[in-house]
């Protein structure tokens, strides 16, 4: 069954956002909000969290890409997101490699296995 086309949003540092916009995911016109946020040194955590929540509430966004070091700043918002769409994908950045121990999805999956269960 064919589905509707959705956008890919990105929240990341300058290089990450520029790279993915080069890939062609960007959308921006006078009437709509952009589907990307460049996080700079003076970008506040509230701003990141507000943008993330806006992306979650939009029904035309299918995937949200977010640098993992930025995801750490708004980890509570990521952990609270339980819906399958939009899918939130933590990606590495140029200066911060990916750490599987911090990924929300993998931490939830790890919670399935406890020491008592495997005895």
């Amino acid at each position, binding site marked *: *069954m*064919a*589905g*509707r*086309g*959705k*956008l*890919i949003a990105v929240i990341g540092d*300058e*290089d*990450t*956002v*520029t*790279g*993915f*916009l*080069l*890939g*062609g*995911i*960007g*959308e*921006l*016109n*006078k*009437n*709509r909000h*952009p*589907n990307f946020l*460049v996080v700079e040194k003076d970008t506040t955590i509230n701003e990141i969290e507000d943008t993330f929540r806006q992306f979650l509430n939009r*029904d*035309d966004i*299918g*995937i949200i*890409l977010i640098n993992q070091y930025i995801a750490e700043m708004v980890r509570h918002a990521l952990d609270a997101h339980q819906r*399958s*769409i939009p*899918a939130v*994908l933590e*990606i*590495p950045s*140029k200066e911060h*490699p*990916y750490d*599987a121990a911090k990924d929300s*999805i*993998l931490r*939830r*999956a790890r*919670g*399935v296995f406890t020491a008592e*269960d*495997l*005895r």
Partner: protein
Amino acid sequence: MCVEPMAVRDLRAELDSLLLQLLRDLEELEAKRVALNARVEGWLSLSKARYAMGAKSVGPLQYASHMEPQVGVCTSEAQDGLQKFWMVRAGTQTPEEVGPCKAVLCRHKGLTRTPEPDPSAPPQDPLNWFGILVPHSLRQARASFWEGLQLAADMASLQIRIDWGRSQLQGLQEKLKQWSLALPDLPPQKQGSEHSCSLTWLHYLRPSSFTDCPPPQLFLPP
């Protein structure tokens, strides 16, 4: 609550099957992650382009004031009911997909009818934001990030499967624990028992508890 041994056996088999599928999905996700993490050449190519064109020549200052997405992601429901993502380029969608995609865009723009597609206005290539003649490194960067988008769509689909598998496993684990509470006389599983299996979580039923029950066996998916 009356619990039949066959029902418990079937539940354990289902648990094992779900767990194996979850582990397979996790392994596949890990492989995709490694591939994505290896795509550092995209950032390196951007840095090379910045070095060739100037420090401020490749960045948000060059973003267009009007952008139209060239790629997107479509969702579909697989046979197991889970959502799956795949990448689509603008202008390469099938006629059946163009209708629903346009309807979504039009609803958000406040239009009441689906507009006719304009074949004479292709979406602007983002490379043109940075000039007419751009260095080869910028094109390489674009190709690298495009491949990263493909991986991202696959990883998003896998994450949905893993989340679903996790919730199913927890539900079945809870059900099995409730059934074990209904049978309080069970002995604890012995360490190193030939019937122990890392794929099961609860104690095996003692054969003497049910006269018609065969000896415990390892349940492995076919």
